[in-house]
């Protein structure tokens, strides 16, 4: 094999690496502009966020180097162990959590805080890859499918209990690799439909939701009309599904929310989604509704005012004068949209798309299943973050606090994505090896 004889450096996929570095550096600039207030501020000020972010990039690259020089078999070997470690960390979080902005998902070592939930994504990806690629796993059996789903949902549940719904939702990204490995369409469709139904019930008003559900089921009915003509039982499934959805969203949830649960519990559910309790579920005497969509409105104003080519670097009035809350973390994209306009934003979107497509390309050239599934995990997690973060900054999705990968300010987030990608690069460098 010619590939095996090549040096490690030439086997690494430098395209992925440069896309990664490029996006991180854009992020450092975006963080700098979101904090910038006047010319007199020195760039090299260690207390500034962009300098911290640069430090984190240094740490990430150092760790990346270690990862690249590690034997790829190591990752295969430690995958289950690391998963166990991740779960233990998550459990420890309940004991040692220090509160950061109302969330109990951070552990503090001196001045250094980190979020086990972020790191655990990597461990879950490794464990899932190992399980699905294992020789004795029959992914077409129900038992193995349940085990795979449990692997993903266990950390997910623990994180939900830590009040970090956004982060937990990211774990649903792992169903995408499972789909690639043969999960039947119908399960994926059902799972996503259920998630959609729950979110829809919470976020959409009852009448429009009823109309949406009805329209969806009529479309499904029309799509499968031939099957329905042949097998009447399918019609019963469709009607039953419609009935269930309507009852669930328009009767069951309102009943439980207004009659069974305590008002504070309802508020907690909505606050997990970053929302206020809608009018229809409010009890008299509770706090009046606050301006919930302030963030999104400001974010849309910032992005929308960028126009075609933007206001120019450091000229964004909305981001420079802190109109957008959380603008260096979750709403980092506002700064790009305002300062660089449609052109800059679209270029960034295309950079992300290129990175994800490249990773899928890498995945499909692996010899071992472990590497392929891991690559899919990386692409899926990236995709999930990318799609939800941009949708929420532009008012297409509810604000659930998901970072923009490698762009948002935040050490753990950058570090975890870096490790994700460097492990992938390492595995890809050994794509000729069959990992057992």
């Amino acid at each position, binding site marked *: *094999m010619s*590939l095996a004889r090549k040096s490690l450096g030439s086997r690494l996929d430098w395209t992925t690496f440069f896309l990664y570095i490029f996006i991180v550096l854009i992020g450092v600039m975006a963080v700098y502009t979101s904090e910038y*207030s*006047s010319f007199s501020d020195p760039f090299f000020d260690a207390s500034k966020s962009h300098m911290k972010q640069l430090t984190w990039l240094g740490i990430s690259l150092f760790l990346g180097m270690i990862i690249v020089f590690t034997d790829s078999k190591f990752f295969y070997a430690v995958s289950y162990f690391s998963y166990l470690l991740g779960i233990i960390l998550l459990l420890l979080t309940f004991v040692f959590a220090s509160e950061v902005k109302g969330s109990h998902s951070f552990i503090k070592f001196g001045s250094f805080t980190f979020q086990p939930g972020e790191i655990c994504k990597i461990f879950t990806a490794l464990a899932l890859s190992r399980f699905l690629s294992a020789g004795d796993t029959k992914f077409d059996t129900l038992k193995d499918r349940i085990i795979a789903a449990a692997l993903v949902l266990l950390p997910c549940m623990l994180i939900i209990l830590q009040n970090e719904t956004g982060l937990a939702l990211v774990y649903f990204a792992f169903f*995408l690799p499972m*789909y*690639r490995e043969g999960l039947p369409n119908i399960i994926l469709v059902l799972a996503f439909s259920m998630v959609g139904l729950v979110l829809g019930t919470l976020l959409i008003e009852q009448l429009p939701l009823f109309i949406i559900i009805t329209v969806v089921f009529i479309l499904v009915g029309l799509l499968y009309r031939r099957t329905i003509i042949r097998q009447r039982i399918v019609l019963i499934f469709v009607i039953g599904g419609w009935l269930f959805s309507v009852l669930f969203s328009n009767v069951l949830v309102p009943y439980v929310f207004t009659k069974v649960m305590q008002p504070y519990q309802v508020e907690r559910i909505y606050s997990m989604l970053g929302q206020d309790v809608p009018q229809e579920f409010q009890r008299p005497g509770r*706090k*009046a509704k*606050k301006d919930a969509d302030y963030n999104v409105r400001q974010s*849309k*104003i*910032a*992005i*929308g*005012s*960028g*126009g*075609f080519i933007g206001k120019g670097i450091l000229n964004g*009035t*909305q981001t*420079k*004068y*802190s*109109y957008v809350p959380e603008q260096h973390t979750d709403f980092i994209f506002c700064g790009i*949209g*305002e300062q660089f*306009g*449609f052109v800059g*934003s*679209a270029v960034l*979107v*295309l950079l*992300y*798309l290129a990175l*994800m*497509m490249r990773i*899928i390309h890498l*995945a*499909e*050239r*692996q*010899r071992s299943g472990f590497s392929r599934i891991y690559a*899919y995990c990386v*692409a899926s997690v990236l*995709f999930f973050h*990318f*799609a939800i973060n*941009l*949708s929420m900054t*532009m008012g*297409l999705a509810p604000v659930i606090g998901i970072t923009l990968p490698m762009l948002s300010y935040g050490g753990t987030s950058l570090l975890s994505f870096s490790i994700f990608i460097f492990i992938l690069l390492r595995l890809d460098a050994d*794509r*000729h090896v069959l990992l057992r």
Partner: protein
Amino acid sequence: MAENTNIHPRSILVRALFVVMALVIIVRLFTLQIMDDKYKILADDQAIYKKIVYPARGEMLDRKGRNLLINDIAYDLQVTPNKLKDLDTALFCRVMNMTRDDFLKSIAKIIKKNGDRRPSVFIASLSPEQNTRIQENLYLFNGFEIIQRTQRRYPMGIGGHIFGYVNEISPARLEMERYASYRQGDYVGINGLEGVYEEVLRGQRGIEYWVRDVYNRPQDPYKNGQLDTPAIAGKTLELYLDAELQAYGEKLMQGKIGSVVAIDPQTGGILTMVSSPSYDPNLLTGAELSRNYSKLYQEYTRPLFNKATQATYPPGSTFKPITGLVALDLGVITPAFGLGCAGGYYQCGKRIGCTHSNPGHAANMRVALANSCNSYFCHLQRLIVDSKQFGNVKNGLQHWHDYMNNFGFGVTLGIDITGEYPGVIPDSVFFNKLYNNHWNSCQLTYMGMGQGEVTVTPIQMANAMCMIANRGYYYIPHFVKSIGGDKNHGMLKKYNQRIDALTHVSKEAYDAIINGMVDVTVSGTGRVAKLDGFNVASKTGTAENYASIHGQRVKLDNHSVFVCFAPADDPKIAIAVIVQNSGYGATWAGPVASLLMEKYLTDTVKRKPLEDRMVNGNTIKKYIYTIDSLNRVRDRIRDLLRTADQRTRDSMRRVQDTVIVERILNKYYHLDTRKKYYDLKRPEYLD
């Protein structure tokens, strides 16, 4: 090795998912950033802050270039009620040290007065302590703004009546055409020079565009200030007023009711105008303005009433030179005309008393003036109106009336502060009405000696002295010499024109009158006005006056009146002084005029004992208070009667206003309109 070249179908689906999502995001970006202009406008609305820069108001200098007033910087707290939605009322009240009730009442008052959209002054002239407290916390209180403006300060505390004052523009003024360019919350000059010269004093507002942050704090000039308009400061007024003389006049007049007007006859420039009791103009600046104003308004001596231009008095004997001059000009007498007076005038049946009874005290015009013989001038008045050339007495009176108007009596002069009264110079219509068409010259005799129906204002008397001193011409009395250094400014045009009202009168006539007035000082009733080295022409007056109390005509103490000018041959100053209800002209008004003249002409006052007597003298009679109270009651009743049916309409409007205010309060504070707003609990979300 052979890379996996056959592409897995589900990998294509996954890739398709990625591409579709990226496309959705790009389409969304396109609609947000390119299709929709709304966000650009919203961003500008939010971040760009238009700051009005108020110019410094024009200054005023006296004739020697001294600053009469100083512009201080004052800060007003402005509020726009409809932006208060998210206000933390409790915190605001704590910072401003006020109760919640007071806060709500003030807001309700502002909404009622100016509506809820326009910025209105919430607290005028913040104290330094208030200012620091609110400045620190301003970003917490959306809807409040601090406006910087200039506020007057008068280092000498003189000339309140002259300057007028500056206050927030009233809704009534806003509707006037003159104030079309003003906005709610602007300041405007009211009365006096501030009011008349408002257009040149105010300067031009500037506009600065600032970018502000989310806490409403201005951060940087927008586009480096390219779009800004700088403010243009108001123009400086240079006055004829002599600050020292004015201060001295106010000092001499303390403890007296009356006024002093001193004019430079050669320019018409007013050197001094005192209306006593005077007030410190500093009272009418700043936060205490309205309280001080009503306090001054309530005073029984009526300090706000400018007695120099608005009070009308019988001129008494100071009118005699005028009567004499008219008689001489008409030719009804010659300067040598004499009258045998034995202490009274009996020709019209009733006796008109004269202080002198020695023979020859009215042997000719000059002597009669020096001795101030009543009989002589009463007789002249009859000679004037009964003169053959006019045919009948009505015609005669009308001609006399024209003379008086030429002297500036019975008409407003058009000086450059507002609120001038014309006084009364009766004409035949007046007497026809008074005497039911049956009257003759005998009813007019008193007017010859400045009593009876004639009333004039102090400024008119001073102006008439200017005319005699100038032998027939005058300039309309005015304060302002130049506007921003320009002596021919449009607003000063009418003051630069010499008015030759009585220049046709012969030299002999003027000589007789002026010599007579000089004799008054040298040997007559006005000897107190003698001034070494100067030829002073003067005339004393002791004016009888009456008050109407419960419909009864009650005689009060005489007004002490004095007019003079000097030097007689080259006049530099003409003065009229009146001290109400204080006795003889030579006792109070004469010394005041003379001391002012000495001060002006020689710069120092040597007659210290006289000065002390004047400064310390108090001539305010107790009954003034009673009369003032009665007048106020009378005015009140008259007002009540006049507005009786207006009130019905007002009440209806008030009910309407209340409904509107309650509706607005309900909208922003969720207050229950069925209860009074100040009884209500705080809306929950504000806690």
